[in-house]
């Protein structure tokens, strides 16, 4: 067991996968010599050489499209978009091809690729480096969308994604890269994609979140218990597609109350889908409207005004109190 940051844990997952499977490759800007702008690919060029860790020109559509072609040629590419805000350049390649090749060719060609992208706010970065747009991928059939929240699940989920036979959009909460460490087992570990985790059982209200927002949620839960004796159950989704409807439903049936938290804007965001699933599966258990604590539907502010626009524990607590006192 070792205490690792999420950055190191992701690095470990790639190192393990590449050592086991010679068809696993990494492509992206500055992933080789520079070891990634966040150092997530540290040491991998040295260990696996330039055929397998490829410093790519500044062309995101190409990173995605070339990865699709590499899949057809029998490889399992891990494509890195330097920031999720530049993944949009590859939207058409991913919609038109990565998500469709299996269906289009009735299984003859498939796209077992991962697109890794750091997302979210919290590092005082310049424009386009801080927004959360995972919902645009979650809406596209044929893609899975995975978002870890801590070192251990990051490593296990990245492993699962690399070996998943279908394309996975892997959103990495960059604010968590080095924010804390966790025990990570010696042996490669994997997790089933599509299973949420109840990270804390509770009886009064369900708080659902994922990725970077799990941290304010955990803080809020502590304070809710200490200050208000509100016992919150916390669900970490870990993947938006597939979304673990069973876990959501079971919890909401138990608590009757729910708050959903994410950094992404509200309109047509992940929380809307979660609420729709609750309505479909547990409406009659709901004792109060589900509250959304999300980014506002605003153009993501430059960093100086960023913090107040994000979910924080205060906002979560306010929403929970409203839901509980409804």
């Amino acid at each position: 067991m070792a205490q690792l940051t999420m950055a190191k844990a992701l690095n470990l997952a790639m190192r393990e996968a590449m050592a086991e499977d010679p068809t696993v490759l990494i492509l992206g800007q500055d992933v080789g010599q520079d070891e990634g702008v966040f150092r997530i690919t540290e040491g991998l060029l040295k260990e696996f050489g330039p055929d397998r860790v490829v410093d790519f020109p500044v062309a995101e559509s190409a990173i995605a499209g070339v990865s699709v072609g590499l899949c057809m040629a029998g490889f399992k590419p891990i494509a890195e978009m330097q920031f999720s805000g530049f993944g949009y350049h590859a939207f058409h390649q991913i919609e038109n091809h990565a998500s469709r090749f299996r269906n289009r060719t009735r299984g003859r060609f498939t796209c077992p690729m991962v697109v890794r992208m750091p997302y979210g706010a919290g590092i005082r970065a310049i424009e386009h480096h801080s927004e959360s747009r995972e919902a645009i991928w979650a809406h596209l059939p044929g893609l899975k969308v995975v978002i870890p929240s801590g070192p251990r699940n990051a490593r296990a989920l990245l492993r699962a994604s690399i070996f998943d036979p279908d394309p996975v959009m892997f959103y990495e909460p960059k604010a968590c890269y080095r924010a804390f460490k966790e025990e990570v087992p010696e042996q490669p570990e994997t997790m089933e994609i599509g299973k949420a985790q109840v990270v804390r059982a509770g009886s009064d209200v369900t708080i659902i979140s994922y990725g970077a927002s799990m941290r304010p949620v955990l803080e809020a839960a502590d304070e809710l218990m200490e200050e208000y004796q509100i016992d919150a159950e916390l669900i970490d989704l870990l993947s938006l597609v597939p979304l673990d409807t069973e876990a959501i439903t079971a919890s909401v049936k138990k608590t009757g109350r729910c708050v959903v938290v994410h950094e992404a804007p509200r309109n047509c965001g992940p929380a809307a889908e979660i609420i729709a699933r609750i309505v479909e599966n547990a409406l009659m258990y709901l004792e109060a409207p589900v509250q959304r604590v999300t980014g506002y539907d605003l153009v993501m502010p430059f960093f100086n005004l960023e913090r107040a626009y994000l979910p924080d524990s205060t906002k979560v607590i306010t929403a929970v109190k409203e839901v509980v006192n409804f």
Partner: protein
Amino acid sequence: MPRGKIELENYVESLSILDAEGNVDSSLEPKLEPQELRKILRAMLLARRYDERMLKLQRQGRIGTYGPALGQEAASLGPAYVLSKNDWLVPSFREPAAMLYRGWPMERLILWWGGNEIGARTPDGVRDTPICVPVASQCLYGAGIAWGCKLRHDGTVAVCFVGDGGTSEGDFHEAMNVAGAFNLPLVCIIQNNQWAISLPRKKQSAATTLAQKAISYGFNGMQVDGNDILAMITAAGEAVDRARRGGGPTIIEAVTYRLGVHTTADDPKKYRTEEEVEQWKCRDPLSRFYKYLKKRGVLDDKARDVMEEEIGAEITAAVENAEKYEPDILEPFHHCFETMPNYLEAQLGEFRAYLDAASGGEGGASGQDNPALYRQVH
């Protein structure tokens, strides 16, 4: 030198071997055995007749919108002809000649245009990607495939096709630049058929040739008479050989012409003259090559008639086969992911219930098990 012209390392060549009368520049004439020449003619003729039949099927409502490749048979076949089985061919949507030659059963292509995914399922043993609709997007997976070829060090290469219009897309650029930067074994054939729907070639780009775009990427280009199968075979052969030997990519601009409509939804009278079309008809790749074969004594009218008849029967059989196909209405649920996730299981349940209701609530049978139901839902 404080001011002066820079001597470029890369260049663009032109190539044409066979003229419109079937006369050949013998210094450039590729050495091809008579049976090879007949095979080539047959492949071009097959593609031509297939196109004509598809236009008819479309008019009869037996397939959907169709995009013919009339007049582009040489540009598309030449590169396919020089590839070996283990090489990859990455078509756009005007390469039936290449695809049929590479081993696609014709019914698959008919089924594609009839709106069936099975038509995009590359036959086992064939290394082609299916028809690609988003213009130029295929160049990128073409580059990825070429990358795979390079990594495997097995001497295989990839050929990708794109239209003159496609050269304006960012994806074309990113693919070619990456191919150059990584010295990939990729040959890109620009089928310059003079039109991108209604936009004429000269409005697509101010570049005098499209071949010169190669210079931008640090490799060489060639502008070839795309209606001259001998030139196409020669140019593609050289480029493929070079790529195979690690010499990197090439752009070949095949100068050809879209003799027909863009698709059956298009009316070219709105934007081009009959005269222009007539002029290009005189440079038809098929009749030109046939004249050459006759001059060389490789084939006479009678042999050609026999060939035509065989081809006609082959096409008829393919149409019949295609029309026997009944798609499985549940199949899309099974091919979204390798393993169907829960939520799709649930949606499949919903869908089955819907099909059952549509079949009169008798339950059980659905979709392909019950063609009558299938038609009813349709």
